[in-house]
């Protein structure tokens, strides 16, 4: 198991491209994921995230470019790559005619594990995802969230060094989603497994990922930690509403070097700055010293949605609408059976 402060790369992708007939699904992408990192690929449906995962998991041959997973080339060292990774696919990949335990047993045997080790690990992962009491129930009787948890458990049995999660909470209700998020976080911090997840949910990427790449039309448009990406937008917006006389407050605040911009209208002042929540007390102090009463404070932190808008000129929702035609085309041609 790699530890959290390991500095080697778990995944390195170099100019990876996948073309389906005349559609370029993944366009000359390069990025690296450090060992132990929780890395995200964020983008609308059809942006090419699943295609990237399928290539890294050795299921799809790239048109050009190369990549290494856990130090092994995805083209020349397929078996070693397969041994090092766990994958939770976007669509369910369980045998519903088998019980939960049988699905895990199948997986463990495919990975060549001995009986005693198999037993111990299956017990362990079932406990981790809290499915022990449902282990002997046929998977067709499972709820969506239970199936997802079982798949995550399965991906962990053989102790992979890299775990791929393709849209891990797609189609789950808010409560189950929270639950899965907690598992993923716990998993990453406790076992140190490198996790690369794809998502089109902004909150998910923001909450989980240490670093992420924003993907649009098969290209990476931006990549960094969620905080740094949001900082690109100029930081937080703090607005204050004043009661009565505003005195010299605006002029005083304008002198502070941590305030990037300041606008005033009527009895409101809005300012942009980094780490707004740490500056608010100072603003209030300044106002009080000036004898000005602050009636209301509002802090708006830019979201990844704003970041996506900044880089692509659209919100992720717009993007989804415009790409639906292309998705249909791609699904019909190449990914039949991907969606159910």
């Amino acid at each position, binding site marked *: 198991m790699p530890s959290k402060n390991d500095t080697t790369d778990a995944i390195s992708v170099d100019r990876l491209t996948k073309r389906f007939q005349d559609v370029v699904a993944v366009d000359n992408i390069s990025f690296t994921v450090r060992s132990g990192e929780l890395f995200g690929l964020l983008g609308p449906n059809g942006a090419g995230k699943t295609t990237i995962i399928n290539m890294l998991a050795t299921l*799809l041959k790239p048109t050009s470019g190369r990549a290494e997973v856990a130090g092994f080339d995805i083209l020349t060292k397929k078996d070693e790559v397969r041994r090092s990774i766990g994958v939770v696919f976007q669509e369910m990949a*369980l*045998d519903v005619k088998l019980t939960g335990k049988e699905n895990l047993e*199948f997986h463990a045997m495919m990975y*060549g594990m001995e009986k005693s080790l198999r037993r111990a690990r299956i017990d362990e992962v079932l406990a981790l995802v809290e499915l022990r009491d449902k282990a002997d129930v046929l998977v067709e009787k499972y709820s969506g969230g239970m199936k997802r948890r079982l798949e995550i458990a*399965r991906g962990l049995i053989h102790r992979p060094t890299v775990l791929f999660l393709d849209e891990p909470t797609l189609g789950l209700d808010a409560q189950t989603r929270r639950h899965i998020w907690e598992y993923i976080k716990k998993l990453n911090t406790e076992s140190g497994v490198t996790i690369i997840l794809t998502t089109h949910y902004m909150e998910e990427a923001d909450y989980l990922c240490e670093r992420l790449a924003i993907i649009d039309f098969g290209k990476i448009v931006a990549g960094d930690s969620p905080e740094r990406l949001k900082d690109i937008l100029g930081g937080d917006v703090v607005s204050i509403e004043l009661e009565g006389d505003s005195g010299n407050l605006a002029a005083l605040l304008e002198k502070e070097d941590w305030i990037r911009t300041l606008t005033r209208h009527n009895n409101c002042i809005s300012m942009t700055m980094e780490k707004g929540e740490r500056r608010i007390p100072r603003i209030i102090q300044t106002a009080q010293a000036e004898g000005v009463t602050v009636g209301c404070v509002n802090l708006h932190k830019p979201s990844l949605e704003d970041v996506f808008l900044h880089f692509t000129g659209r919100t992720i929702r717009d993007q989804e609408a415009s790409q639906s035609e292309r998705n249909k085309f791609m699904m019909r041609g190449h990914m039949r059976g991907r969606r159910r």
Partner: protein
Amino acid sequence: MIDRAAITVLWLREMKRFVRAKSRIIGALAMPLFFLGFLGMGFRRMAIPGMGDGVGYLQFLVPGILGMSLLFSSTFGGLSVLWDREFGFLKEIMVAPVSRVSIVLGRIAGGVTTSMIQVLLLFGISFLMGFRLRSLPMLLLALVFMILISVTFLGLGLVFASMMKDMQGFSIVMNFVIFPLFFLSGALYPLDNFPAWLRALSYLDPLTYGIDGIRAALIGYSSFSLVFNLVVMGCFALGMIFLGAFLFERSESV
């Protein structure tokens, strides 16, 4: 290259699914049983030229229907890869660090076992209908032919599964491949009655030699010699495994 644990677990999975799908077993047995029952009774008194002296129609028909059951169940067994693709489980299989050859062998082991269980059930019922065995040791030889037929058509099913993206082509395979193979094989009538050009097609059909071999072993009457049938069936079985495995390996799993 050959991963025994993987082959075992793939086989085990087929067994579990088979045992849990009782309605599927009954459904798969129904058609050959109807053929056997109705044709056997309907043509009971018929004297068909080329059937062999003193061989009753039921005796002639049983090996043919056994071959039919194997043809259908094994081809479907090979095609079942498409179900796994449709339900996503194929990805779980393909992403595992297991050689593709082992995956194909596991599939074939499972398919042969389920096909053989079905055909042996059918064989048992045929005794109730009046089928008589010529000699007990020859029964083993008949079993060898049954296994070879099963392997051959599992390979064929895999070939089609690798060429198709989903189950939409299923009825085409059924109507334009499986049924013609069945009728060309001489399962229901002696091939001597076919015009020469049609008989030539029959000689391209692996099932022809399979059924003729079962007949040679079980009722002591056949068009070709037993050894010839055995050699031809052996070649077909090997050839189809390699072709099926080759195409399966090349097909993309997502």
